[in-house]
């Protein structure tokens, strides 16, 4: 063992420090501590002034570095991120004292000012040693912050504007919901705020955009689809004063509105169709949540309800199915099924993600850093982070059935048909039982004897298990395992034998009546019998005799787990029955040579389970036989055996009935046939739809919550209770133990300064490309300040006033003159406000990834507008999908026009995201995304020029141009251009396209085969050259900046 000792010495120092990734803690030299002062110390007189002078600036009402504040008794006693800082009675062990003396981990405190004198430290020590007596200040740990975002929302007065006629015009105060602002004059409050600011900078707003631009902008913003040419014409020609408002109403009522705005929300929800991490298994039913979002937005579920249901729908009184499905929001977290992971680690990661996502989405606050330490800039401590964690810590992950209406209807129909057919088969059997069967049964009963059933159940009289399982036998000799579930166990069963001769044994593994369980005790209901052995004990002999067994057979064996293994007795193999563990099974073992049983002999069976964890038999029965010939692994009911053993005239009615049933179902040929037909039919019963929804389900009190020291889930700090950050308004829980629903409702309390501001800012960002607070995800000190703080507050007060109606808020914004302005840049604006922060014009925005795709499909006429349902897989080169883990990603292309559905339906495989989406800055769905980038890269150009999906769109646009009944190329071009861009080409543009037309046509005519390929024609023909040319032109139109830009 000398080597071991040496090795240990060698290794522990390094391994220990590395294993826990913790810095080494050198023992403190406490001799350097100044001694405690003698004499009485008074907190108010001696200690508090010291704290105030030396500590409050970092550990007071404004800042709480390291999560510590020393100005309030309750908070000071709790300590900071790493626990308590003073222990009453033990000054030498108190971290506060170490820090003041410069012995602590974080160096001397205070770090920048003059340190405390030894006498002062001595006073602190004496105060702690005397019990740290701190008169009750009764103060709650309220925090102060003068940061704008934490101040209450106050509805500001709408600024007065001087109109072009010089008249002072006050913006309508918007206090009546039906009061639609007039379109011609800037009476809209939004415009009042924007124009007041512009006026201050002496900038003028831009004129209203032309109608084609307006309808294209609105269609793209509200539906994510470009308008059809006839829709453009109708709007351009609508001279009614409310033409624009009618358009807005029509678009808000479209089912595609829900798709467009669901996609914005799904970014926040980090929605995806797979688990993430290495294995990244598919989540085939993730769409049930996505479809909930679409439906909720289409029905304009008020935003407060929309939010509360997603955070805590399961906790609402009498929660509906839809409200439970809504909690799928927080089931979009990643799941790591990589081998060898600690599941608690990744459960904690998911809970952390739920906290940070909730904070980002509703509070516009970045809390991710608080997982490990208190926020460096914003007033959130690590303790507060885990107090939020506590709200989510008892939410378990569940799946509930969630068939679509179609699936449910199809299932019910199939079930009805199946039941009707079953009835027919039953009645055939019944009528045979009354008509054909009786004479045959009577004849059989005359001759039938016990020989028909060779097995005798063995009633055990001693049962034992080595590792703590308790075994019990019932009257039917069925042995049930109960009590502890040890990893491995060995059962012994002792029984007398009624037979004179023995030829073999039977083991029945009996399915548990609970449908979720099986014959085995493992989680999946399976068992692995690693050894089956029998010893014969004869009276007077001390040693039992091991009986030699062979020819083991079973009615079913799992692959690689044959019942023969049970005779070998190796720990690594045995008899098992997956995937049929939810059925009873039977195994038989023959004796190598028949045995004449000595008088009084007993059998001792050993059933060993040494394979992995808990693969133990749960219910089983043993039987013996004296029958000759090969034994068959079959069941014969005991009742039948008993009935046959009785003399015919002494059989009870029940026994006669059992025999009749046995004869009909297991002996008589015709009866067996009819029964088999019935059984086969039963097996074909339609399965209930497999579609499920991933939801949260609360299990109160299951887990306590502790601070994870430095974010390490294994290193538990102090326990915390569910509560909200002190800088914000107090929580008003419904009961003593606050829950997720309390948290969700707290977000929408009228005094919440953040939720409304953050939410309206999201909507604003989606309509202008940039939030009034550009950092939509961060309203903290590191975030940007609002460009128009009063407008932000006006909107934040307006949203709840509109009953949190998303559609009403959007309508209010898009009917403003500010929204309707032209996006054309002006030199003076380029000079003075290059980033258009002041909105003297609309922004031009490159379309988002999904919208780029949708615009292509729509303009070409290929779009399949179906809403909802399982996600789709458009064409993808095989080698791209093959980059998933160990070739596990199966990308089966969607058939027919399923592949032409909108971008938001594309199956999002987290490790192998659909390349086009990523090329156009779709989020990776691994964490919440409040704001997308809009990059501009050559890969985008290559995708739009050459990706087969987009090229097919060009071919279709070419075909649409070719269909125009004209011989005039310019007319064809005009048609295609209007389809793509919702406006006619200018003369210059038309000339350039005609020039291209001539040149391409020449090349196409010279290259008949190429032209046929381009046009998608079966063979080369003279008219194909023109078709190919139009395809080439369509391709150019669809690659114009304007096409995938919202002007």
């Amino acid at each position, binding site marked *: 063992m000398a080597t*071991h000792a040496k*090795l240990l010495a060698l*290794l522990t120092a390094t391994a220990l420090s*590395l*294993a*826990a990734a913790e810095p080494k803690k050198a023992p403190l030299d406490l001799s350097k501590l100044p001694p405690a002062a003698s004499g009485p110390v008074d907190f108010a007189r001696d200690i508090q002034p010291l704290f105030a002078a030396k500590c409050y600036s970092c550990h007071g009402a404004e800042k709480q570095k390291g999560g510590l504040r020393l100005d309030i008794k309750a908070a000071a006693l709790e300590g900071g991120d790493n626990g308590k800082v003073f222990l009453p009675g033990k000054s030498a062990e108190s971290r506060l004292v170490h820090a003041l003396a410069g012995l602590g981990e974080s160096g001397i405190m205070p770090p920048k000012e003059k340190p405390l004198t030894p006498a002062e430290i001595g006073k602190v020590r004496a105060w702690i040693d005397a019990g740290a007596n701190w008169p009750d200040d009764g103060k709650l740990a309220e925090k102060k912050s003068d940061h704008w975002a934490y101040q209450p929302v106050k509805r500001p007065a709408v600024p007065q504007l001087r109109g072009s006629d010089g008249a002072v015009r006050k913006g309508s105060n918007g206090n009546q919901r039906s009061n639609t602002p007039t379109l011609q004059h800037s009476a809209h409050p939004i415009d009042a705020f924007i124009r007041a600011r512009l006026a201050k900078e002496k900038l003028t707003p831009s004129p209203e955009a032309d109608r084609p631009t307006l309808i294209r902008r609105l269609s793209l913003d509200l539906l994510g689809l470009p308008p059809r040419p006839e829709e453009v014409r109708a709007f351009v020609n609508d001279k009614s004063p409310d033409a624009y408002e009618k358009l807005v109403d029509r678009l808000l009522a479209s089912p595609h509105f829900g798709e467009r705005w669901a996609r914005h929300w799904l970014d926040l929800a980090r929605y995806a169709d797979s688990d993430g*991490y*290495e294995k990244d298994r598919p989540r085939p039913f993730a769409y049930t949540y996505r479809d909930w979002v679409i439906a909720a937005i289409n029905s304009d579920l008020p935003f407060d309800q929309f939010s509360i249901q997603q955070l805590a729908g399961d906790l609402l009184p009498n929660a509906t199915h839809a409200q439970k499905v809504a909690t799928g929001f927080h089931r979009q977290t990643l799941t*790591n099924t*990589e081998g*060898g992971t600690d599941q608690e680690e990744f459960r904690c990661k998911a809970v952390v993600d739920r906290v940070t996502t909730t904070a980002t989405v509703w509070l516009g606050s970045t809390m991710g*850093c608080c997982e490990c330490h208190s926020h460096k*800039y914003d007033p959130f401590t690590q303790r507060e982070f885990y107090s939020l964690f506590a709200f989510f810590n008892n939410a378990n992950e569940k799946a509930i059935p969630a068939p679509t209406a179609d699936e449910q209807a199809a299932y019910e129909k199939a079930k009805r048909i199946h039941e009707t057919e079953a009835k027919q088969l039953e009645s055939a059997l019944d009528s045979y039982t009354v008509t054909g069967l009786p004479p045959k049964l009577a004849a059989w009963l005359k001759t039938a004897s016990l020989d028909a059933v060779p097995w005798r159940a063995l009633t055990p009289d001693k049962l034992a298990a080595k590792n703590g399982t308790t075994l019990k036998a019932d009257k039917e000799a069925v042995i049930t395992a109960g009590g502890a579930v040890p990893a491995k166990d060995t059962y012994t069963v002792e029984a007398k034998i009624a037979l004179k001769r023995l030829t073999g044994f039977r083991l029945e593994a009996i399915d548990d009546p609970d449908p979720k369980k099986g014959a085995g005790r493992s989680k999946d209901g399976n068992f692995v019998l690693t050894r089956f052995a029998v010893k014969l004990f004869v009276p007077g002999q001390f040693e039992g005799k091991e009986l030699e067994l062979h020819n083991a057979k079973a009615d079913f064996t799992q692959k690689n787990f044959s019942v023969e293994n049970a005779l070998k007795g190796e720990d*690594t193999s045995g008899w098992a029955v997956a995937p049929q563990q939810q059925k009873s099974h039977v195994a038989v073992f023959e004796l190598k040579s028949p045995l004449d049983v000595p008088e009084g002999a007993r059998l001792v069976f050993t059933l060993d389970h040494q394979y*992995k964890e808990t693969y133990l038999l749960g219910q089983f029965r043993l039987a013996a036989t004296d029958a000759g010939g090969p034994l068959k692994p079959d069941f014969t009911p005991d009742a039948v055996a008993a009935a046959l053993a009785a003399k015919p005239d002494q059989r009870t009615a029940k026994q006669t009935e059992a025999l009749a049933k046995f004869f009909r179902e297991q002996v008589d040929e015709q009866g067996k046939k009819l029964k088999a037909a019935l059984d086969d039919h039963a097996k074909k019963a339609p399965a209930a739809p497999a579609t499920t929804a991933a939801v949260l389900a609360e299990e109160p009190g299951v887990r306590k919550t502790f601070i994870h020291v430095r974010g390490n889930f294994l290193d538990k700090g102090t326990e915390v209770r569910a509560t909200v950050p002190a800088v914000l308004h107090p929580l008003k829980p419904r009961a003593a133990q606050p829950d997720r629903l309390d948290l969700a409702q707290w977000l929408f309390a009228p005094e919440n300064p953040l939720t409304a501001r953050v939410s309206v800012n999201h909507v604003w960002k989606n309509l202008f490309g940039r939030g009034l607070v*550009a*950092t939509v995800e961060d309203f*903290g*000190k*590191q975030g940007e*300040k609002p460009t128009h703080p009063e407008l932000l507050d006006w909107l934040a007060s307006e949203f709840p006033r509109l009953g949190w109606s998303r559609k009403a808020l959007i309508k209010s914004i898009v009917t403003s003159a500010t929204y309707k302005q032209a996006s*054309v*840049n*002006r030199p003076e604006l*380029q000079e003075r406000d*290059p*980033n258009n922060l002041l909105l003297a014009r609309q922004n*031009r925005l490159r379309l988002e990834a999904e919208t780029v795709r949708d615009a292509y499909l729509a303009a070409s006429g290929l779009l399949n507008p179906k809403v909802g349902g399982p996600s789709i897989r458009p064409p993808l*080169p095989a080698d791209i999908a093959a*980059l*998933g*883990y*160990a*070739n596990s990603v199966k990308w089966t292309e969607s058939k027919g026009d399923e592949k032409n559905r909108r971008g938001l339906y594309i199956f999002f495989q987290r490790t192998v995201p659909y390349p086009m989406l*990523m090329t156009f800055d779709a989020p*990776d769905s*691994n*964490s919440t995304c409040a704001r997308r*980038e809009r*990059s*501009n*890269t*050559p890969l985008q*150009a*290559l*995708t739009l*020029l*050459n990706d*087969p999906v987009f090229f097919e769109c060009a071919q279709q646009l070419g075909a649409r141009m070719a269909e125009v009944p004209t011989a005039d190329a310019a007319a064809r071009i005009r048609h295609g251009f209007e389809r793509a861009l919702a406006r006619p080409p*200018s003369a210059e543009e038309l000339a350039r*396209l005609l020039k*291209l037309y001539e040149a391409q046509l020449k090349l*196409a005519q010279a*290259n008949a085969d*190429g032209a046929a390929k*381009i046009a998608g024609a079966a063979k080369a023909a003279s008219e194909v050259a023109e078709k*190919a040319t139009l395809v*080439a032109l369509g391709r*150019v139109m669809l690659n114009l*900046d304007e096409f995938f830009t919202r002007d």
Partner: protein
Amino acid sequence: MSPSDIANLTRRDFLASTGMGTLALASLLAEKGYALPSADPLAPRASHFTPRAKNCILIYFEGAPSHIDLYDPKPKLNEMNGQKLPDEMLEKVRFAFIKKEGVRLMGSPRKFTKHGQCGTELSDLLPHLGSIADDICLVRSMNTTQFNHHPGQLMMNCGSPLFGRPTLGSWLTYGLGNESRDLPAYVVLHAGRGSSAGASAWTSGFLPSTYAGVLFRNQGDPVLNLGNPPGFTDEMQHLGLDAIGDLNRLRHKHVADPEIASRIGAYELAGRMQAATPELMDLSKESQATLDLYGVGRKSRENPGGRGGGPETYSTFSRNCLLARRMVERGVRFVTLLHASWDHHSNINQELPFCAGMADQPIAALVRDLKQRGMLDDTMVIWASEFGRTPLGENRGGSANVTGRDHHPFAFSMWLAGGGIKGGQVIGETDEIGWGIVRDPVRVPDLHATILQQFGFEHEKLTYRFQGLDFRLTGFEGAKVVPKMLA
């Protein structure tokens, strides 16, 4: 200012960008001479100080190669083969698959010999790497905080086990821009079957996708959608691209949006990529001697387990190494060469020789070729993975049949060469069984800080504002440049 605005600042602003987000709106509006959004985000930029390295080739082997069988000889471990680990130690550590009861030390069957003037010991599985031992800085004292593959890969690639962070390649592309006029700045090549990190191995995370790696393929178009649609000749393509450019210019005249100017630029670059990439991928101008040096065209050795790849994998990896050199020659900033399946929980003595046989010759060829062409001074070559493997035999499921090793984050080996890295040396040392580090531990953030330093960056100053924080590759827990690594 939004992150995209920050990304578009001029060089001076870029280098002084810390604190920009706090500037008041008024001063923002007043600020003149601030780059317009049209500024090319990939324009070459200067770093904080003169860099030693300009290009990087990262060879990343997913799955964690065994340091004990490749880089870190442990004769004592071989002596102790079959012995138990002391219980006191077992209690403190964590395994992925190993059953603590009955676990035993497992020696390595590999023979180690000294190579080069420096005398660095390498396994008999890496004979060719021996020939470049004097150029290699072998680090035997790497360690990581992550225990499972994907989080470990994120840690090594992005400096954090969390998703959503940019890779080293993205950071360098963001910091330095692109030297190539017609190829992407950051390219990824792949060999063998699947990948366990997927696209997260080349993601730009919170940086704009401009800085993401571009995956080059081994079949079809080298870059997805690089080729024209069926039937389109180059001439037709040019006609189309010219028209797109002209019509976009007309639009630009009308709406004056600088974004259109950059769209025109992107389409022109796409056209140049179409022209330049076939030349890049065409190895016919390379001499037979060069092809043989890298092993292009060789067949894989027998692969009984089949996990590391098929008959073509060796040649694909050889070709990727040669392409990496060609890319760097053409100005590509960062090349990642990926291969998965080094996760040898079992069959290590069959599967590791397969993987090493794939890696050894072409990587040695790459370093020699770069050196011979005078490119190694500017080009940093890195061999890396997420962690190493234990000196214990893996008895998964309590099995007596021990043929592999479990994960080991506490100590592992990797190496760097070129780009101002001091070759011919070994940094750090593990204990007698290769379990813990006894000298000069190097954490992942330290490695990243050192790499950034060679590319001219102070790691604390190469930052990007996201969710209110100035993120950096090296994280917030501190990182130290490892001076010993530097020439």
